[in-house]
């Protein structure tokens, strides 16, 4: 595959991540902070995010397992942190699920919490796969221009 072809593929991949709502404007903001001296900034941030957010997910899982009834306040606090960093990397769907989870917490709706948590974990894992594929392709092809952002 020649260079231009792989660059077009990467641009298309990124565009679809935006079109399908996985990423929002914040991701582009982060890309604009990259330069020759910091070419992998976004990947570094995303790696950091997955390390921290996975730990928070474990904390929530533990809190759900251990406590009956659920400690909604504690769950909400953990999710607040989770939502914050998800927002910082532009993880749109994950952020939306965190908001839903927090709403269930505030309503004291345990079943809703657990359901939305399952969905959140799915989105979190799916985005990770997609971004890993994206970064791998980007690394192989070298630097490219940013795609159009969401409308």
């Amino acid at each position, binding site marked *: 595959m020649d260079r231009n072809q792989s660059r077009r593929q990467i641009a298309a991949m990124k565009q679809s991540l935006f079109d399908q709502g996985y990423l929002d404007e914040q991701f582009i*903001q982060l890309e604009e*902070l990259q330069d020759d001296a910091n070419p992998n900034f976004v990947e570094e*941030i995303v790696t*950091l995010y997955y390390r921290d957010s996975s730990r928070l997910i474990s904390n929530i899982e533990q809190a759900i397992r251990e406590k009956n009834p659920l400690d909604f306040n504690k769950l909400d606090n953990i999710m607040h942190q989770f939502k*914050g*960093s998800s927002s*910082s990397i532009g993880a749109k769907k994950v952020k939306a699920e965190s908001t839903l989870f927090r709403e269930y917490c505030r309503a004291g709706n345990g079943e809703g919490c657990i359901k939305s948590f399952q969905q959140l974990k799915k989105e979190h894992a799916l985005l990770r796969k997609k971004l890993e594929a994206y970064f791998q392709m980007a690394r192989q092809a070298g630097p490219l221009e940013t795609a159009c952002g969401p409308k």
Partner: protein
Amino acid sequence: MTTAGDVFRLNLPQVLEESPSGSPELHVLAVDDSHVDRKVIERLLKISSCKVTVVDSGTRALQYLGLDGEKNSIGFDSVKVNLIMTDYSMPGMTGYELLKKIKQESSIFREIPVVIMSSENILTRIDRCLEEGAEEFLLKPVKLSDVKRVTDFIMKGERKEREKKSHKRRRSDDYSSSPIASPLLKSHPCDSSSPSALSLKKSKL
């Protein structure tokens, strides 16, 4: 507005340091418990040509500034910080509590501008922070344009201070009385319209 205190503002924590290239740069202390957000704000500030120190809590911020009550040398050889940018929601000491502690200082440290960052757009929270003396309230995720705007504003303020000081030193031979009385400062070009802190604060509302 000049006060008698101004004549003593020589070796402040806010004095601008010089970058290796010789141009003055702001030293910003960023406070956030989120590792991701710390990395991002650090990058935003570096791109905005600032020297950055990042800490993960209000307690560490106070330690860094030498305000934690520990036996510390304060004054001329203390750390020089021109701006503090802090997250609002942090475990332990919140950004609001950090803001209060700094503004309640009887020392020159209370002059350091503090900017609060928060992911939650709560009007009462914003009001409370501004009332307590926050320079500005930024919504997260913070953008490069936000950081540039804030640092530009602070930099302008620092330049004005430096120009005022050098002006005062030149005139000090002519005026043996208190600098408050100096009529020249009123018509000094540096005192002409600049974005007031109030209009800057209100821009987020």
